[in-house]
């Protein structure tokens, strides 16, 4: 029933500060089919994170629109966006965005709150994911008590546990060592195999292109090649 393809049409984003205007994105046009793995490549500051944030509806573009499942994500109501974010779109942030005073378990649990599931089921589900990611014994620790790699894994579990149809991952391996990066990619690919998921990964280049069905390179806020 759901068509989880993404289309960006003439998307642009300007940040206006006191004396200057920064064009973070200019005339971005791209198309991502359902179940594709797409790499958004580019240097730091190229505009990849901004594009992912616009694609997920977290920020509004200055111009253009993003179409997901035939809905213009930038125009839908906040309630509809909340439903999309809780059920269909999963975001993995570059900076993990874990709540510092919540335990590992609670950080994952908060992603399940909007789904209104049975508490026992939630617990079982979380523990099974923690086991898969070798974090079962860390459930009651705070993020500050984990390594960077472990924090990233928690952030990924928080996204995957919602069983989204679209995953927007911003530098999921950007701040971890090679071994952990491999582990993380492995988890994402396994999830991709087991579920019909559209995966958009923003990377500055440390993820092999062999994983991708399609690659877009972003430079200074523009798509460099198609």
């Amino acid at each position: 029933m759901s068509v989880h393809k993404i289309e960006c049409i003439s998307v642009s984003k300007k940040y206006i500060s006191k004396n200057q205007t920064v064009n973070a994105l200019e005339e971005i046009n791209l198309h991502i089919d359902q179940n594709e793995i797409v790499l958004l490549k580019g240097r730091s500051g190229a505009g990849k994170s901004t594009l992912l944030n616009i694609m997920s509806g977290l920020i509004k573009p200055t111009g253009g629109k993003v179409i997901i499942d035939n809905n213009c994500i930038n125009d839908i109501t906040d309630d509809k966006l909340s439903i999309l974010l809780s059920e269909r779109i999963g975001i993995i942030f570059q900076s993990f965005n874990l709540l510092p005073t919540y335990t590992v378990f609670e950080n994952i649990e908060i992603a399940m709150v909007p789904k209104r599931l049975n508490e026992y089921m939630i617990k079982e589900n979380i523990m099974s994911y923690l086991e898969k990611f070798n974090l079962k014994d860390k459930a009651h620790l705070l993020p500050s008590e984990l390594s960077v790699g472990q924090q990233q894994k928690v952030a990924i579990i928080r996204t995957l546990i919602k069983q989204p149809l679209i995953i927007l991952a911003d530098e999921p391996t950007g701040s971890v060592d090679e071994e952990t990066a491999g582990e993380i990619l492995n988890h994402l690919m396994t999830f991709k195999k087991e579920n019909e998921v559209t995966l958009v990964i923003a990377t500055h280049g440390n993820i092999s292109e062999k994983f991708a069905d399609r690659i877009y390179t972003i430079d200074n806020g523009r798509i460099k090649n198609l």
Partner: protein
Amino acid sequence: MKYLIKELKRHRGRTIASISGYTISTVFILLVLSVAITNEKSSFGILRGTGTHFIVYIPSNASCCVNCDNEDSKGSLVAEGVNTIMLTSDLIDSIKNIKGVRDAAPYLLYKLHEPKYNADISLGGIDISSIATKNNVCAVTNLVAGKFLSEKPNEIVAEESFAMAHNLSVGDTLKIYGGKLLLAGIVNSGIKPGKADIYAPIGNVRRILKENLKCISPGFEMNIILVEVSDSRIHSQVISQLKDRMKYFSVSSYNCYQPASEVMTIIEKASTLLTVLIFIFLIVFSAKTQMTSLMERSREIGILKSLGWSNSRLSNQIIFISLIQAFIGVIIGILIGYILILVMNSNQIRLFNLVEFNFRIRVIPLLIILSIAGGLIAAIFPITKLYRTKAGDLINNYM
């Protein structure tokens, strides 16, 4: 609920600051109300009864009572230096039915020339038990010597000025009004609209006038009605209602009810204004606290929004947090205020050494309602901000 409690515990400092705001405001409002109510009660007790009396009568050009057998007596029914006609007791009921009238009493005031004293001597017949008599004529509280009136047939009390003018003492017998009257007591009633030289119970005066002076007019009951109003603030309304109904009446009132009424209105408004000001402070303070909380939590709230938490779920959290803080704050405030008042009273601490602090249980619901309202209003600002800001901007603190 789990995350709500967690949120309150998580930011202990902010929670304590917010609760303290409600607590301090509650204590202040409690103290203001405590003083205001005590002040209002004691001041109003005095002011409400200030100038709330007046007399009514119908002036006449006749020099003597109608149908009076004794034309040589040269006596007449008077009020404030003019002759009056007689009134019937059913008028008292009519006046009592006017809204705001606390009491109305009959008064029979007769003036007679007594050659022995070479003076016109006025005799007032009063209803001893009436509050209207107390404030318009005299009462036992005005007694300066001897005893006050009883129902004994020939006992009278005299005004101090009259007794001094004629060198009279308690126990003296006055041969006036066609008989012998025993001076039981001396009063100083001050300035009153129904003042006379001597007073006796109204039944006795009626008997003296009928038997001794042969005033045999039918329905001979009174010539003045004494009126007491329940509150000085409605004094003028009562008078105008009375004048509307009984156009021929002359109404005589000392207008001291007016300043009393004004002072009462000022006291009422001042305490209300002070309470409103503290309430505004409470709202501003708590709104600021909730707003600061939103700013501090903006990143977290942005993350929760990005995970699919709806604006309504987050708004409910903000409202409940605000309400819980308000409720805990007001309860602590009431307890502290209560203890403070107890301590101040036990140490005889008074405002300006005069006004006592009194804890009133009936203000508790008002305080709780004020704080809950404050909590709700305070939550409006952050919620508005929450609805207007996208998750990404909240995460990046780009508000």
